[in-house]
């Protein structure tokens, strides 16, 4: 069985699966049980400054988006950082860490944007023996209105400044957690690196309203007739998170900066995908909140099985392996020509491919009176929509046209050479042909 032990910034954990800073990591009771259940590490629920803790709403704080059979696809919350006292949290962290020295324990922190506040809390966190800290710049609700969290996360200069303070007052790894509620994720990541961050983690939750109640005409979750935007997470956000991760991984400014991947990770496969995009560890919140701690077992077994199949001895063998294949659109090979192919034996004749192509794409699928669906190569632009809407897996595939053959749509011969938009004659910015 593949070895899942993980080393991220020198922080060791039995596996790369950490619980993200959130309710699952809000207290000693949870974290002990999480470690017993097999989680490799936790980022403790975000700590606030000394003094009276924040208060949460006393009505519903979650909203959800469902797929078939009430499968939870997206979760939204209006929870704040920990509502327990700093003292209690620090005591619990110290106890847990001493009982689980081999597991990763990271302290998530959000205090006002003043150096004294950080200088005050960091030594106390260090005393607990925590393996590192994560700066919560990402909370999209409640805290940002108080000048903390996402508000700081949206101003790269503040990120750099706060990170620098942390590096000054704390000697273990500093991870900067990024908010996705920003136009270009590379900016805050670059700022974190410039401030001396050891790593970034992303994404935090996305600003969202999950539903509006059509009887009370208020957003849900509704507190006494009113609602507010919350933070969106769960399977629905994974594509957004992976895109952001990949941008950081391949940008020259941030390339090589260690990343802890977060956002919708639910299965071993999700985790593996994030890791191939450069994440040295992954964090999970919604999946644990939906199914309980036990899901880590599937993640561990699945990842290990896949690693064995691929011949990977340790996670470092594949972390970042997909980064070289993430490129910009203009570098995609325009001489790569494919056509949709329908496997008539697998086809169940639902006609979805036809409706999709006929109504919204390129009128490239024909339908006979007895419901035989066929691709017309002279119209098919290989957009993949039929593949995506076909309910039968592998029923429609994209087959590459062999070199030398003629694309019936364009009448052009298929070339072997790679050629992209940057040199295409239709591109006004392309260098003139020699």
């Amino acid at each position, binding site marked *: 069985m593949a070895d899942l032990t993980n080393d991220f910034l020198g922080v060791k954990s039995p596996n790369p699966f950490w619980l993200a800073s959130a309710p699952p990591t809000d207290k000693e009771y949870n974290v002990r049980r999480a470690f017993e259940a097999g989680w490799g590490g936790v980022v403790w629920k975000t700590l606030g400054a000394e003094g009276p803790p924040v208060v949460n709403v006393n009505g519903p704080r979650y909203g959800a988006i469902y797929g*078939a*059979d*009430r499968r939870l696809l997206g979760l939204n919350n209006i929870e704040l950082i920990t509502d327990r006292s700093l003292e209690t949290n620090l005591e619990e962290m110290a106890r847990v860490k001493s009982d689980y020295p081999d597991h990763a324990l990271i302290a998530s922190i959000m205090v006002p944007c003043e150096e004294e506040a950080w200088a005050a809390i960091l030594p106390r966190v260090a005393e607990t023996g925590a393996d590192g800290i994560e700066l919560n710049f990402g909370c999209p609700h409640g805290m940002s209105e108080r000048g903390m969290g996402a508000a700081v996360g949206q101003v790269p200069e503040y990120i750099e400044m706060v990170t620098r303070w942390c590096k000054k007052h704390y000697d273990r790894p500093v991870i900067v957690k990024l908010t996705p509620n920003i136009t270009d994720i590379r900016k805050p990541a670059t700022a974190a690196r410039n401030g001396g961050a050891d790593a970034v983690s992303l994404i935090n939750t996305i600003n969202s309203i999950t539903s509006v109640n059509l009887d009370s005409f208020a957003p849900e979750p509704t507190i006494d007739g009113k609602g507010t935007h919350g933070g969106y997470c769960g399977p629905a956000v994974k594509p957004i998170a992976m895109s952001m991760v990949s941008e950081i991984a391949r940008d020259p400014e941030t390339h090589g900066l260690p990343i802890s991947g977060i956002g919708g990770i639910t299965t071993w496969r999700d985790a593996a995908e994030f890791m191939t995009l450069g994440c040295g560890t992954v964090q999970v919140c919604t999946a644990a909140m939906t199914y309980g701690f036990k899901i880590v077992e599937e993640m561990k077994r699945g990842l290990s099985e896949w690693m064995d199949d691929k011949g990977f001895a340790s996670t470092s063998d594949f972390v970042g392996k997909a980064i070289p294949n993430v490129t910009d659109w203009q570098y995609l090979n325009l001489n790569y020509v494919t056509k949709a192919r329908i496997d008539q034996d697998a086809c*169940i*004749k*639902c*006609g*979805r491919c*036809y*409706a999709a192509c006929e109504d919204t794409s390129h009128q490239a699928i024909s*339908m006979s009176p007895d*419901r035989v669906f066929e691709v017309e190569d002279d119209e098919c632009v290989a957009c993949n929509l039929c593949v995506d809407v076909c*309910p*039968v897996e592998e029923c429609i595939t994209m087959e590459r046209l062999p070199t030398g053959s003629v694309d019936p749509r364009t009448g052009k011969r298929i070339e072997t050479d790679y050629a992209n938009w940057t040199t295409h004659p239709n591109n006004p910015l392309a260098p003139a042909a020699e």
Partner: protein
Amino acid sequence: MTSQLTPGIVPGRLGPEEIGKNFSDLHAPLDRHEATVAADRCYFCHEAPCVTACPTEIDIPLFIRQIATGMPEAAAKTIFEQNILGGMCARVCPTETLCEEACVREAAEGKPVEIGRLQRHATDSLMSRQGHPFHRAAETGKRVAVVGAGPAGLACAHRLAMKGHTVTIYEARSKPGGLNEYGIAAYKATDAFAAREVDWLLGIGGITIEYDRPLGADLDLETLRTDFDAVFLGMGLGGVNALDAPGNDRDGVADAVDFIAELRQSENLTKLPVGRHVVVIGGGMTAVDAAVQSKLLGAEQVTLAYRRGPDKMPASQYERDLATSKGVRILTHVMPKAMHGNGSVAEIELEYTQEIDGSLQGTGETFRLPADQVFRAIGQSLVSGLGLDMAGSKIATSDNGRTSLDKVWAGGDCTPGEDLTVVAVSEGRDAAEDIHAALTGA
């Protein structure tokens, strides 16, 4: 104490509790969550094959999507626009040979979308909460006579009333519904659904039913043709095919449809007599229903005897599986030779058959089964004599139910086509549209 082993035709073989259980809903209704999950399986097919397979062409993907989006009552309207007896059809349609057989998920996984149960979920939702969902158009002053208050007649009358015509239904019996009320297996339409559905349907207004008014004796077709602007015949099949085997007239030998009608009208099934050894002759839906319900009443042994092979049986595989799951034994390639007994029937003698070049012949080898009750279920036939052109034993019609007589339309079991509730509904509805067009010159 009467038990399943008591000889003869006696009531009370089972106690009230067991009878109650046996005759409860065959398929429990889907609750809201189950319906959402079931609805989610629908692929919303393009020009969906299930719609083509439904004789009333209900827009199935649309109504299922309406259930999925939390609008079962709107879904019901989609159904009722095409099939005003969508509630009954949801319960009695042999979906395994109609919509669900054509469902692409049947091809994909052998597990179709549960169209019938979803249809029931939608129609039940609306019928339990709302009044009649349609409005009658302004009165046209045109009057139409409908003969028979079965599915065909009711569907025709409803559509005509909706268009503003005034309808009088002449019904031979004292209750409406036709075979919905007297024929369909009890466990398919529980809690007096047939009667409730008719009440609800009549909510459209403009329809009067005259009971105990059979076309024939005091009422002839010519009178109707003169008194009304149009006539629709939906009188079903009143007769039953005869069985010519010696002993056919013995006590204990009866028509399955009469037994079923009696069962359907019985207030207390523990009081309904049934034999210990029941043999049903036939292979259609009526035969299966008679056999299954005999068994559910407490008959010890029930045998269904069909003269051809299982592949030729008109009852679907699903119906046959239902029968065997309830403990009915199905014998194929056997035909009745004689009913023996001393007064009442005590034994049935069956002969093996074989098909040679498509024609059925006895092999000469016979055997006997104990039988204190024998039901004939070898088909119903039309009692006619109306002076209309016939197509075989049924009233000949053109596409929209026009008969050979001017101003006279017909539909349902009395005309060619499959004898199914949903077919009767579609024929009644289409005839109504044609009558409307004829009366208004549309």
